[in-house]
């Protein structure tokens, strides 16, 4: 019976991540609009856009290959699997032990690999711009993320996300290293999801675009899958920050239904707060030049390195 319950819980988390991600994007857009004294689109608008895209015909370039046609499915699948493995309302779900934090980051790297390849497939210069810049950002963001993973695992003694969340929930204390790791992870999250100041998700067709340039030729159901994948990626990062650094209210996988409901409520609250803070940050900063982004990511890497050194110091005292 518990097997069935566990399976249902895991499946519920997968569907929850899928359902909530466009709503998160919608919430952020609405908040940004409100902060700019506009009315803004309804929160459910991204879902409407996705369904509309699904119903449209796909226009393929003449020389699009099988890789171009299958990449959206692969990108979506990899991002969805990664997002389902991050604890949202409960830890220790049925398949959470099949991939630890490093594997989740590597899955996102796989998705980025195929997205960059898809950008180069048609052979236009826009796709090339997007792919080459994405490759550069990725090559700087991944070491920063790994350093943050090191810090967190040295503190918690494991790389398994559920165990990390459980440890952090049980040992609430103020640590400089964890604080630095949080700031570093925020920097990486902004860079990886293409938010201001690294990339502007609201406009298309600018030469400084990274993500939008890679998916310029996609349309219809393919575009819908890729948009959904990027929404899932944002949800993944917000959930990751929430479960590692603010693991309040997380239920255990064998808890009762009431604890799960509390976990769900806490999770929705954290998502809303995260969305609000992101909207606030995006409205108050300007986008930076592309060649300043390595400095930005370098700061994240330095923070990760400092945090690791600090953990070593406290551990050996």
């Amino acid at each position, binding site marked *: 019976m518990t097997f069935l319950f566990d399976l249902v819980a895991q499946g519920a988390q997968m569907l929850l991540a899928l359902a909530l991600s466009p709503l998160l994007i919608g919430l952020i857009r609405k908040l940004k609009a409100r902060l700019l004294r506009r009315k803004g689109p309804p929160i459910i608008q991204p879902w409407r856009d996705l369904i509309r895209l699904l119903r449209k015909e796909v226009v393929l370039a003449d020389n699009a290959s099988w890789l171009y046609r299958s990449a959206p499915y692969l990108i979506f699948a990899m991002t969805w699997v990664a997002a389902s493995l991050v604890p949202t309302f409960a830890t220790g779900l049925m398949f959470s032990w099949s991939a630890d934090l490093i594997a989740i980051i590597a899955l996102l790297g796989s998705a980025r690999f195929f997205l960059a390849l898809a950008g180069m497939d048609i052979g236009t210069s826009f796709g090339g711009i997007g792919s080459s810049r994405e490759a550069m950002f990725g090559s700087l963001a991944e070491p920063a993320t790994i350093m943050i993973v090191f810090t967190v695992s040295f503190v918690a003694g494991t790389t398994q996300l559920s165990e990390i969340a459980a440890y952090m929930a049980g040992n609430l*204390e*103020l*640590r*400089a*290293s964890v*604080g*630095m790791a949080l700031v570093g992870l925020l920097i990486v999250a902004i860079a990886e999801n293409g938010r201001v100041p690294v990339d502007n998700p609201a406009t298309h067709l600018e030469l400084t675009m990274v993500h939008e340039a890679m998916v310029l030729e996609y349309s219809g159901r393919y575009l819908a899958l890729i948009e959904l994948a990027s929404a899932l990626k944002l949800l993944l990062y917000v959930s990751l920050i929430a479960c590692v650094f603010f693991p309040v209210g997380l239920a255990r996988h064998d808890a009762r239904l009431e604890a799960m409901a509390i976990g769900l409520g806490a999770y929705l609250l954290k998502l809303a707060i995260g969305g609000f803070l992101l909207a606030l940050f995006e409205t108050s900063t300007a986008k930076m030049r592309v060649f300043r982004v390595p*400095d930005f990511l*370098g*700061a994240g890497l*330095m*923070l990760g*390195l*400092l945090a690791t*050194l*600090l953990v*070593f*110091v*406290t551990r*050996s*005292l």
Partner: protein
Amino acid sequence: MEHLTIDIAHVLAGALVLTSFMLLYQDRLSGLINIYTLHAVILSMSVAWQAYYQDAPHLYVTAAIAAIFKALIIPFSLRRIIERLGVHRTVEVVGGVGITMLIGIFLVALSLVVMLPATASADPLAREDIAFALAIVLLGLLMMVTRRNAVSQIIGFMSLENGLILAAAGAKGMPLVVEISVAFSILIAFIVIGIFLFRIRERFDNVDLFELDRARGERP
């Protein structure tokens, strides 16, 4: 509670090291002065917390001196100086920020490797503060080595002194007279350097060290 005390001291010392890194990165002169102010504020908070933890009232005086002199008077006068020199909008050429940062990290690791085993028998809070203080001193020296503008060199020198104060506060029982004499000598040095800067500026119309080397004929 004990744990929280150590944690807060930990956070403050770590923040001081982080601010030293920010000094390395910053290339606008007015921004440099702001970050130096932040450095001094965090230093005085750290020393005040040490005073609370060690129950040593004279350290409160040290913290007050640091706050008043280094966070208020010196930044104010530095700002006046650079406005009169006309260099307050300068954006300095800081070559190789990436390499400087990596060297900085290496210096922090080096201070840890050297200091932590050497002080194995001391109180954990003091050990940590001394190790970080050495790191701040080395980072201040690195800043002086990699900068061309004389004002940035001064700020590097002052951040170095902040590190020394942190070390002295961490080691229990630093008498106040040492602190006063150190602060006084720094103030004198500061005034002398300020006077020299004005003279140099009068003579050569420039306080950039590379330009000064050129004027001396040391550089083509």
